[in-house]
């Protein structure tokens, strides 16, 4: 019993941990986990959109089931590859006002947000010395193609601080070719650490416990204040953890359907992707 609750706690914490934590602390922890828990951990990082919203007052099982059906049928119609925050991507959409009625944007995925059909992802790139961000609905039917140019994670789960970092850290070449990656095994973590621009910033990044920043360019008083306002006890708050996590029993229902989907549809998508590569 004790070991079960321990693993559950470890898992629940693991689910909230960033990709980087997986690399150091998480890998050690996950290796000791049973197979099904390890799978749940991997899938929740891979398909954050398929999990329902954890807010208990707004949950409804019929809604979640129908929403999931819609998401999986959209995934059947278009190849939505595995990607993470920090991956380099290119997205082509139908655009009524673009020449050729198509528009392609290349950039680094800086955050993913919302659950279910509302799931959105943001790409960032520098265009003519100007930072540009595009926010896409992942399940919108105007998306024609999603390509992952470089499959990777970064040290942080949310890269919005790139808005206040030097522009070279969010520049992705427009003519970048998709890089081959191993289909099995862990996803590589890009350990780039950025240099921030001088203040003013959009947020007080020094208070966010970021790992991907090398040079802050700040005086000591900012870090002193960050320590003062930090809440290090929050990571021991079990109720908070419980509230922002979908229970494991509910997750298994989702992952069971996802397993089926991966075996059939995603295999087919992978084969067609390989065929395209060979043809080109």
């Amino acid at each position: 019993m004790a070991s079960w609750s321990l693993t559950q706690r470890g898992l629940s914490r693991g689910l909230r941990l960033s990709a980087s934590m997986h690399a150091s602390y998480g890998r050690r922890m996950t290796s000791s986990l049973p197979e099904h828990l390890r799978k749940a951990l991997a899938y929740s990082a891979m398909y954050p959109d398929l999990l329902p919203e954890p807010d208990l007052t707004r949950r409804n099982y019929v809604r979640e089931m129908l929403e999931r059906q819609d998401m999986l049928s959209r995934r059947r119609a278009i190849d939505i590859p595995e990607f993470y925050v920090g991956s380099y991507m290119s997205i082509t959409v139908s655009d009524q006002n673009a020449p050729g009625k198509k528009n392609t944007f290349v950039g680094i995925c800086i955050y993913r947000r919302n659950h279910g059909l509302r799931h959105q992802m943001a790409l960032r790139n520098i265009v003519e010395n100007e930072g540009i961000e595009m926010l896409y609905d992942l399940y919108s039917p105007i998306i024609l193609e999603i390509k992952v140019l470089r499959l990777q994670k970064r040290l942080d789960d949310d890269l919005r601080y790139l808005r206040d970092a030097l522009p070279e850290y969010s520049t992705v070449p427009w003519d970048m070719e998709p890089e081959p990656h191993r289909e099995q095994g862990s996803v590589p973590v890009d350990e780039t650490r950025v240099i921030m621009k001088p203040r003013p910033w959009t947020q007080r990044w020094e208070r966010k416990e970021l790992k991907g920043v090398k040079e802050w360019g700040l005086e000591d008083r900012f870090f002193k204040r960050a320590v003062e306002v930090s809440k290090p006890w929050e990571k021991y708050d079990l109720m908070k953890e419980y509230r922002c996590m979908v229970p494991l029993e509910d997750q298994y229902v989702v992952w069971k359907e996802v397993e089926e989907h991966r075996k059939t549809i995603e295999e087919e998508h992978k084969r067609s992707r390989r065929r395209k590569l060979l043809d080109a």
Partner: protein
Amino acid sequence: MSGLLTRLFSSQLQISCSRLAPLAGTQCVQHLQIREKSTKPKRRKVHPFHWWAPKNRADMSEDLLTEKNQVFLQQVAERIYLAPGESPLNEEPWPIGTYQEGSRRTGIIAKKIGVVPMWLKSGKRVLASMLHVCEQNVITYMDPETYARTRFGFRGKGHGCLIVGAESRDPTRFRQEYLDLFKESGVAPKKKLTKFLVTPNAALQPGTPLFAGHFKVGNYVNIYGKTIDRGFLGAKRRWGMKGGRATHGTTKNHNRMGAMGGPRGRILKGKKMGGHDGQERRLLVGVKILRINYKHGVIYVRGPSVMGEIGAFVQIYDALIPEKRPKEDNMPPFPTYFPAETDPLPEDVFDETVHPFDAPSIEFEQEVQVKRKLKVKARAKAAGKR
């Protein structure tokens, strides 16, 4: 008003005077209290009407039931009441009416279960509210004459009334008066009861189950329900007033509404102030049905503004305004949908304007550029230049 006053004076006041007179032995003092009816409609009802049958048993602790007793009571309840799937009609079926111009069908009870995005074929993103049609039956039908004689029957304007109940519950939790309401139909006692006005040709036999097949995709419906109860709010949140400044020496004035004085040195009636917000009946008129999942009984209507929180009951019925009434080419089943094994409904139906999720991505067609014909003068000019 004058009539009310005279009645007051003639009855109660004189009595009180006569009662007081022998005690005091002198001239009695008149304490006249006049109650005016508010000009505004009543916003919310705090207590149920006193003539309603009381619903829940207050105290169940004295039942002193053993586990065996409970099982026995369950078995009795199963024998008395019909199971959800069982044929509910305990007498000869009534003749089915036919549609005529101006006929009004019953509505159905549903639960709001969420708001999701959907995409139109033009690529536009719209929000759709999901309404889950509960397990429900017709409880009673009152013809127009009977209904007109009831307390609020005059509002029916010649319509009959159909009482529909949704979501079966354990009968031991209800009082006998409430259970008696379900004797006629024979169905299990329901959690939620509502009233729908119908024309006599749309009358349904007590016990008839209602399904999502009652509606068709592309039609317009009215939705009636209660808004979210937000409790007592300040003027800033209730009416969106600006409040005071955050800084610059402001003290205790951040959330106040500011000046409220009007003309003539008094505050006008209906001034927007803090108070209770929400839990009010609202009607959403003429929303389009974008999609119906007949298998799970879920109706998707356009717009995120269906009232109430997730899990709240709403009533859905055909739109009444002439432009949005069901049309000849897309007429829903009249008086309601009766499931037939030979002709089952499709699982999931989308409106023409909506992009189904399993369809391929939307691609816009290239416009063909048409060369405009030059006018004669311009053509001559262009030719001359060459």
